[in-house]
């Protein structure tokens, strides 16, 4: 399925907007960092200059991480919505984020140093997201109604929330602190040196997703039709869950849980594009998600002199009313 002219124009506009907003994001903080600081921080880095440190170690990784988180979570949301044929599905709503959080909580509370390392947290977030993806996939086979699946997701979220709380009550103060701080979520914990490995994993995911767009297009027609058209349903499902877990786990490990992006952005994109072409939807979701989270983070930085809001709180404030709007629209 080729991309229509109208869609191409919108995608080009988004492609143009993304670097502009990313640049605005770079200059939005409280401290005035000018262009020369950015250039110096990359080409002739002076580790004693606080402006260069802020530019290289905070602003640039924060901007790149915002793009990765926005794009990754939006794509994960789109994958879930197509897989379950449900516009209200998403990694947060269906409990995939909760799975990542639960596994991270368990690993941190063990107090074993490896599990509290970045690698340990990332591995556990990925495994948790995958396991909970498989659980929701298992339940989906027995549920016919879209609402039932959301209820199961909600219950999974509540169940893991209760398990996390229980784990917190019996854990040592130090481990409790580690988990609480991780769960607060942040775009600015990533260091310059971590950007390349994170981006490599993300980029691999993007390439793999591009290959699934055809299967996703056929899945929309229903499982029976998809099977008749030669799609191996079991493999396709597993592959989609693995990709969703990859994006959700990676982002949750480095930024903590970020709500509503995966639910709100794919729906917004569907409303604008009105298409079932998953290549179009995937590209647009990635671009819109990245722009959306960059805008959220710019707002956070503008409000920062007065009070500070975690990214997870801000995306919920913006995302939740939008989801209510979608539900009301569907009911009409």
């Amino acid at each position, binding site marked *: 399925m080729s991309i229509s002219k109208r869609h191409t124009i919108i995608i080009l506009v988004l492609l143009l907007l993304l670097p502009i907003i990313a640049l605005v994001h770079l200059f939005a903080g*409280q401290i005035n960092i000018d262009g020369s600081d950015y250039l110096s921080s990359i080409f002739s880095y002076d580790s004693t200059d606080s402006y260069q440190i802020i530019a290289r170690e905070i602003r640039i990784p924060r901007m790149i991480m915002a793009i990765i988180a926005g794009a990754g979570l939006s794509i994960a949301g789109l994958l879930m919505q197509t897989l379950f044929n449900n516009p209200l599905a998403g990694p947060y709503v269906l409990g995939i984020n909760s799975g990542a959080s639960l596994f991270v909580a368990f690993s941190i509370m063990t107090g074993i140093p490896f599990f509290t390392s970045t690698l340990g947290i990332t591995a556990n977030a990925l495994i948790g997201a995958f396991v909970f993806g498989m659980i929701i996939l298992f339940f989906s086979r027995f549920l016919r109604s879209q609402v039932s699946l959301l209820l199961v997701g909600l219950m999974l979220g509540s169940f893991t929330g209760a398990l996390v709380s229980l784990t917190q009550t019996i854990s040592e103060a130090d481990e409790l602190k580690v988990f609480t701080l991780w769960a607060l979520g942040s775009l600015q914990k990533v260091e310059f040196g971590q950007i390349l490995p994170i981006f490599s994993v993300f980029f691999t995911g993007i390439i793999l997703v591009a290959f699934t767009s055809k299967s996703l297009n056929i899945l929309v027609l229903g499982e029976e039709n998809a099977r008749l058209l030669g799609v191996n349903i079991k493999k396709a499902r597993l592959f989609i869950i693995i990709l969703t877990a990859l994006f959700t786990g990676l982002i949750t490990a480095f930024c903590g849980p970020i709500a509503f992006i995966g639910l709100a952005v794919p729906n917004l994109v569907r409303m604008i594009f009105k298409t079932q072409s998953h290549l179009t939807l995937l590209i647009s979701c990635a671009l819109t998600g990245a722009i959306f989270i960059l805008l959220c983070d710019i707002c956070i930085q503008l409000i920062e002199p007065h009070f500070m809001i975690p990214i997870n709180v801000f995306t919920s404030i913006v995302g939740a009313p939008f989801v209510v709007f979608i539900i009301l629209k569907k009911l009409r």
Partner: protein
Amino acid sequence: MNSLLYLAVQLKKCMKYVLLLLPTILFLSCNASKTDSPEKTENIEDVKIEYAQHFNLSLKDNAYFLEILDPISGKVESSHTIAPNEKHQAISLSATVVGMYAILNQQKQLKGVSSMDYVYDAKVKSLFKLGNIKEFGDETTNSIEKIISSDANTILYSGFGDEFPNQKKLEALHFTILPIYDWKEIHPLGKAEWIKVIGALTGKMDEAIAFFDKVVKEYNELLQLTESIDNRPTCLSGNLIGDIWYTPASESYVAHLMKDAGANYRYAETNGQVTLQFSIEQILKDNENTEFWINPGYNSKSKIDKFNPHIKHLKCYNNIFCYSPNMSKFWEQSAAEPHHVLSDLIHIFHPEIKGINTLYYYEKIN
């Protein structure tokens, strides 16, 4: 008289059943622990309070009259008469209060603590093993039934502005409930002076005054060592929680200690007592030349790096000092013994000053 006492003890043991009658009790009873201020014409003698801002203490006919003051308005929040020979068996949910009982060697008057995880004193630990001291949880998790069925008649808690949970019900059952606002005191010696309240409750006022006077003397002697110092190194405090760096304001207890120890607190120019909040960017910009960092909340660089990976670019990253190697010791003792904290900080900021050779609470993080 003995039979009356026996009757009182038996009644107390049955108090949990009284819960059933609480509505009636609440309606009929008057508040037993709280009292009105003595008439001005009465012959009362004030207990000298030099530094503490949040309580008043006076003495009349061997009974202490204690007024707890609201830390914000300064108005009297509650008043309590502590009769002579009245046994106050206390549940202390504040670690600093446990430390004050230990200093006065009155651990036997303690019947409970919030959690043994935060206790340092060996005698309190052994009384816990014997079953004489129990754990009651913090202000949000304790059980009213467990409190009523205990041997305690006094509850000492940190008072975060709200009443103690079920306060009216407990007061109706003759519990004395005292918020301890030592943590709101700005002057380190003001914090320490709360030992006089514990002295009044335990009947050891003379010992409490003697201890406090000794602390004041030692604190002021240390202060003289830094008063004339011109070279004051810049110091930072606090750490990131999420994306926000919380650090004490200039009129806080920690800022006061840093100033007394001959350091220049980086945010000394700010106003007020409310904790300051900064972004990591602001901290990096403001502290390019800051030499020391105290109280980071962690006791290892690996933990600091994990939650604050950008801070390693600052000069003070090589001079981090924390009290956390023995957190419960610090929380239990430091409020009543601020001279040890001051001595540590002087040694950290001015190792050239002779006479202080070791650190009591603090440790350098390597």
